[in-house]
């Protein structure tokens, strides 16, 4: 006496169950969507944070105008009690804070002094200054004591020597740059 279910009835049963199944799937899917949305948001905020931190780490090459503006605002040169290495170090740190890739340049040179016909033996000297590569690839020297820029692509070494000669000694007879080290 078992009841024979007609195919139409069976089909109707499926139609009745299907919405329930679909509602369950859809609600689960919505929950998963919310979870995924939260993950995306977490990644987004984390990436933004790292990107910001990276922007601080990447140091750029300034244009000549930007460099002049930075040096005009820069006040570490006003402290006359600092040694040349301290001034150079301070200027480099401030440039890094401003996002510019400035380096410290050690310039080794040899001088011969002469006084009343007597000539000194060649004496080694080291000058500590700053340097930076500009946007256009030109390297310029910066004297941290006065915050001024020396050199362009045509006359770097000549200008540098002239400046050093003016600053070193009255009895300078000969000067020659022997080495240059750039410390980034």
């Amino acid at each position, binding site marked *: 006496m078992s009841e024979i279910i007609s195919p139409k009835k069976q089909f109707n049963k499926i*139609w009745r169950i299907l*919405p329930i199944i679909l509602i369950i*799937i859809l609600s689960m899917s919505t929950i998963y969507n919310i979870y995924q949305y939260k993950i995306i948001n977490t990644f987004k905020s984390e990436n933004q944070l*790292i990107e910001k931190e*990276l922007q601080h780490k990447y140091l750029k090459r300034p244009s000549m105008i930007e460099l002049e503006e930075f040096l005009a605002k820069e006040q570490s040169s006003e402290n006359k009690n600092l040694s040349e*290495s301290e001034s150079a170090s301070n200027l480099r740190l401030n440039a890094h804070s401003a996002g510019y890739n400035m380096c*410290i340049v050690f310039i080794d040179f040899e001088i011969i002094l002469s006084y009343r016909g007597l000539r000194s033996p060649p004496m080694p000297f*080291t000058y*500590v200054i700053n340097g930076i590569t500009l946007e256009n690839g030109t390297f310029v020297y910066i004297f941290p004591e006065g915050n001024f820029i020396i050199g362009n692509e045509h006359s770097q070494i000549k200008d540098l020597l002239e400046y050093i000669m003016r600053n070193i000694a009255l009895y300078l007879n000969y000067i020659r740059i022997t080495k240059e*080290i750039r410390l980034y």
Partner: protein
Amino acid sequence: MNGIKFYNANSSSMKLLRNLSFILIILTISSLIFHIHQYSTINAMKERNQFFKTELNKFTLENPSIEDLHKFLSNDITNQKDGANWDCKDSANVLRLNARKSGFNMCVVLLDVNYVIKSASRDKEYWAPSTGLVTINGAILDNETFVYIDPQDDQIIRFDRYSLEWKLLEKNNDALVAAIINEVHIW
């Protein structure tokens, strides 16, 4: 008639159920498509995050332990470099760069030193004051202790002015006195 009414009611509810099912199917499919989209977004963000982290790691330098520092210095060959134009500034610069490559935070220490050195003029020896710039390295260890490192002989010197001045005297045979007047750390 009752039978027909019941059948009609059943039929209209079935129609509703069918329509509902279709709507739900469409919603489920669109939800699945949205899942795929979100999944690819998550993957892209993961990759971006990984890239940023590796980039950031390049800038993150750690303070070495004393054992790590000894190990690094014994493997490093900067102290063996020598030449007519090679001096303490080159050694300190190169050692700092090599330490950075190994992930250690090392600085260059600039020392302005006043010396009293033996000089000779017209066959007479005398002691004369002199100044000099000495460049060495320095590092903060993992226990927050600062140490100096002589890049030319890989010696680790404790953070003490007298130990450092003694070292400077050792390095300069002609000097009788070495006094540090200024010290700058370049990280």
